[in-house]
């Protein structure tokens, strides 16, 4: 083994990993720290309020750290029969998951059609689909309400889930743009190997569309998870409520103190699925980019 001359100068001068502390960097750091604190303050209040008992939550000035940690706030959400939090959580999950499945299935099929088959009217049809984006929900609210009520679906979760199975213009647009970018050669290769049109869609397009599908899934889930107006219109009984309606109900009375501590505990629990989904889907997102690295 050859002896290494440690004293010899390195061929390329090694940059010190740490840049020298300059006032600019220190000020920048302090500014960033300040912004972080400002951004995290509401979150901090949410977490601490959720752990205060009902006397302490009204204390002024508010305590920064709860004197006694009232973990029972979290269990009360599930045991208090007047809140029905667990049931509402379940409802929100059912709506969220089925909405994602519905939107992905229907929108990706339609988008595949728009991206792959071109006829004289396909552009016009695509424009028509896009134009539905211009319709605000309140414009279709009453007719849709009438429709679902006539079908006997009032006070069930179906009016929240079903529309997702008929495509969403926004997702169709997003997926079509993505599908269009997949090179034709891949499809030709698939056809040579004897793929049916559906297999081209299911086995070729979908696996390549990971990132786009993940984006769609995240958007759809968040929209449905946070939606308040639609469930308020359709759902009448507390056991059918979704989380946003349940949370709004908890502070709904001007005749009574809102149970802020329970409300904050509920808010923490309801933001969990979004956080989880985001972290999981984000990884898929990156994976997708790697997989589709065709040049």
């Amino acid at each position, binding site marked *: 083994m050859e002896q290494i001359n440690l004293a010899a100068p390195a061929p390329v001068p090694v940059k010190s990993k740490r840049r020298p502390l300059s006032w600019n960097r220190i000020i920048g750091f302090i500014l960033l720290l300040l912004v972080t604190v400002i951004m995290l303050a509401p979150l901090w209040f949410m977490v601490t309020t959720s752990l205060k008992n009902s006397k302490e939550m009204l204390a002024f000035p508010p305590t920064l750290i709860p004197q006694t940690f009232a973990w029972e706030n979290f269990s009360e959400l599930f045991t208090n029969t007047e809140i029905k939090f667990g049931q509402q959580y379940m409802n929100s999950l059912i709506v969220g998951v089925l909405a994602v499945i*519905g939107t992905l299935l229907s929108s990706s099929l339609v988008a595949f059609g728009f991206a792959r088959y071109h006829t004289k009217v396909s552009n016009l049809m695509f424009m028509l689909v896009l134009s539905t984006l211009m319709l605000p929900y309140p414009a279709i609210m009453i007719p849709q309400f009438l429709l679902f009520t006539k079908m006997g679906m009032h006070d069930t979760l179906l009016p929240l889930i079903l529309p997702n199975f008929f495509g969403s213009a926004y997702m169709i647009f997003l997926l079509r743009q993505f599908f269009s970018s997949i090179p034709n050669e891949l499809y030709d290769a698939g056809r040579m190997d004897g793929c049916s049109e559906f297999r081209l869609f299911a086995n070729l397009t979908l696996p390549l569309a990971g990132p786009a599908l993940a984006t769609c899934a995240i958007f759809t889930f968040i929209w449905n998870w946070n939606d308040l107006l639609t469930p308020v219109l359709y759902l009448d009984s507390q056991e059918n409520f979704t989380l946003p309606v349940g949370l709004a109900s908890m502070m709904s009375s001007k*005749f009574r103190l809102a149970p802020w501590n329970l409300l904050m505990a509920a808010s923490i629990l309801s933001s969990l699925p979004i956080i989880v989904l985001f972290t999981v889907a984000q990884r898929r997102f990156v994976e997708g980019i790697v997989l589709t690295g065709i040049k």
Partner: protein
Amino acid sequence: MKKRWLSAILCVSLVTVLAGCGGGSKSAEENGVVTITHYTIDSPDRTFVEKLIPDFEKKHPNIKIKVTKAPYEQFDSKLQSAIAAKNGPDVTSQWGYGGFMEYYNKGMLADLTPYLKDFKASDYNIPENLMDIYKVDGKTYGIPLNSYVSVLLYNKDLFDKAGVAYPPTDYEDKSWTFDKMVENAKKLTVDSKNLAEAQYGLDFGWGERDQRPQYFGADVYSEDTWTNGGKPSQINLDKPNVIDAYKQIYSLIWEKKVSPTPAFSKSVSGQFGDPFLSGKIGMSAVGSWSLASSNNFNFKVGVAAIPQGPNEKVRSVLYVDPLFVLKDSKHPKEALEWIKYLITTEVQEKSIELSGGNPPVNQKAAEKYYASFEGIEPAQIKQVYEGAFKYGFESYNHLMDNYSQINELFINELAGVENGEKKVEDVLPVIQEKLKKLLDRVNK
């Protein structure tokens, strides 16, 4: 593999969808049993009626009651769309932002007079003048259920610390005047920029902003408003006595400095909270619903009479909550049976505890209500209530058409005065002008 997985999901979702379609569409009218829907805000002090249903259904085997709910903020929009879709409830009340006259003028309410031939308010111990609130041209459109009044809540701890005597509960006590209240408030006030030290003597939240001058003997709307369906023919915001009343109201914040600024209130209690709950306010003139949560307060609370102000006749705002039957109801008679059940003495007494302290309209049941607050003498609450009824005027929001829009105008325009950025005499002409235009538009 992938394909099978995909079709499995498709199947599952289709089955779920189809299975759901089957339910729900059952006919309610089997064997002459009718279902009455009772629509309310989803809050324990309203939804407690569910607990009364089994007893009611036992007594009325031909009627079923279904309670439907919405959060307070969304109450009106859900009601409007349900009515538009001919799917409205049978029984409800003005639990959202809109009020009686708004409902009435939109033609939402059923005239109950034909069904009330052998109904006597005295059988339910309801004072006749409360029944009159929900009559138009001699026809009855609503039956009172709960009656809230204005009360003066005070923080006993702050009074003790400042060595100020508690205010009286007797409306006939002539020494208890508005000036005396302000004088007390001064002793209780610590006007400081430091939020932790600052405290204020009085939060004068008497009625909504457009009704407040009434306490000072000035009326914002012409007299005919209360007889013609809530449509004022004249607005008096340019009259000297109204301007003077508003000056008195806002001098409490900016000249006398005994009332909290909106900035202070928001910082101690959030956007919509009541600053009194923070324990930093000595006295608070509010609706008596604030009493319902008094057992949770961080301090000892007392209740007193609203002092004698410049208006000798009106010292309290009445908030009488009624129940309505909607016009589209297919079973108004059965709906009325349910309402009558809710105002019987026995049920009204039971409701106090179930609701957590709703004041019954039934005066016999009210006796029990007076005795349901920790640390407050029943006789005192009774005296305050009786005085408030005697010197009471129904809240404007129940009596005026399009009230939510009018109220919003007042809130938005007066915000400048409350913040100390604008002067009363500059803002009132603006409201006068805008309100005229608004009323011209909606009352066409």
